């Protein structure tokens, strides 16, 4: 070594992570992994709100967030990262302000744009984890293709009215990709979005906070991941199910790509 390594943490930063560091499954090494981690979060809406808030609070070092939407009044019933005084502001800028207020030691990269095929590869590159918190299946599939190509794990959550689902897509490590599990996009009108169908305000909190927990687990190596497991949660009837899901060897997205992987 010809020069000193830059310190990992800013002066005075470590005490805020004390409750993580005492956890056996995270500890000092796990907290350092969070600090060194770089994640991409697609969507700063209902699911993105708790994911962003908890990952920034947890001390994830670098957080990129992409969304092209602006904060509107009908968002505030569930998108708790935004606020009345930021109505009309780009959601990624509103999120940046909220995150800076929670943890100024996180490097937040706000990207005010819609994810497209041309940009997805560049955004996914170099990330330790990609998080799908978007609101439409076309973008979900586009992001899935980029993650499969780059061999990145994709933590994906989705909600509808009173229900949510989440899993960790990762064909490079034995789990299915989105297209293995849901190869067909539903016909128009079958799966209405939140604006058309409504959504219970706390639901993205339940699913999004679970996504944040799974992200922390994945980045630190704690516990058992959601690879190969789809969680379905019905908040109206209090039903939860875990479905074992597997790769489709004939999947048009990942079928030939990772055939030799573990």
């Amino acid at each position: 070594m010809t020069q000193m390594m830059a310190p990992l943490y800013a002066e005075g930063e470590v005490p805020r992570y004390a409750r993580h560091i005492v956890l056996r499954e995270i500890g000092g090494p796990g907290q350092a992994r969070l600090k060194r981690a770089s994640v991409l979060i697609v969507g700063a809406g209902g699911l993105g709100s708790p994911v962003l808030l908890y990952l920034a609070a947890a001390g994830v070092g670098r957080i990129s967030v992409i969304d092209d939407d602006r904060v509107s009044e009908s968002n505030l019933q569930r998108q708790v990262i935004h606020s009345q005084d930021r109505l009309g502001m780009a959601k990624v800028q509103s999120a940046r302000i909220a995150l800076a207020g929670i943890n100024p030691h996180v490097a937040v990269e706000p990207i005010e744009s819609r994810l497209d095929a041309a940009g997805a590869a560049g955004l996914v590159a170099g990330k330790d984890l990609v998080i799908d918190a978007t609101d439409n299946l076309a973008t979900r599939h586009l992001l899935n293709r980029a993650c499969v190509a780059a061999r990145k794990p994709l933590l994906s959550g989705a909600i509808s009215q009173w229900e949510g689902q989440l899993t960790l897509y990762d064909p490079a490590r034995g789990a299915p990709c989105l297209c293995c599990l849901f190869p067909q996009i539903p016909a128009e009108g079958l799966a209405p979005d939140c604006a058309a169908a409504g959504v219970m305000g706390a639901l993205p909190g339940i699913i999004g906070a679970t996504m944040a927990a799974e992200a922390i687990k994945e980045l630190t190596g704690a516990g058992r991941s959601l690879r190969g497991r789809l969680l379905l949660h019905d908040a109206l009837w209090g039903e939860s199910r875990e479905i074992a899901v597997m790769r489709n060897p004939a999947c048009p997205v990942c079928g030939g790509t990772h055939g030799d992987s573990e």
Partner: protein
Amino acid sequence: MATLDILYFAWLRERIATPRETVDTAAQTVAELIQELSAQSERHAAAFADLASVRVALDQVLADIAAPLAGAREVAFFPPMTGG
């Protein structure tokens, strides 16, 4: 005849208006079960009208619509959710 617990998620539950029901059936495959269920009511028929994006799990393991029921106790139908 076998007694099965049937679970519905997202728009299937929305259309059938219940999250679960118990049925007695002689169906041998998921596809036959769907035919029987669809004949039960207009709500069921509407829920199963477009199966292209619907997935099924037998005893909490992903399966194909063509799969044999083969002694399964629980059949769950779920589509992809979109919202975020």
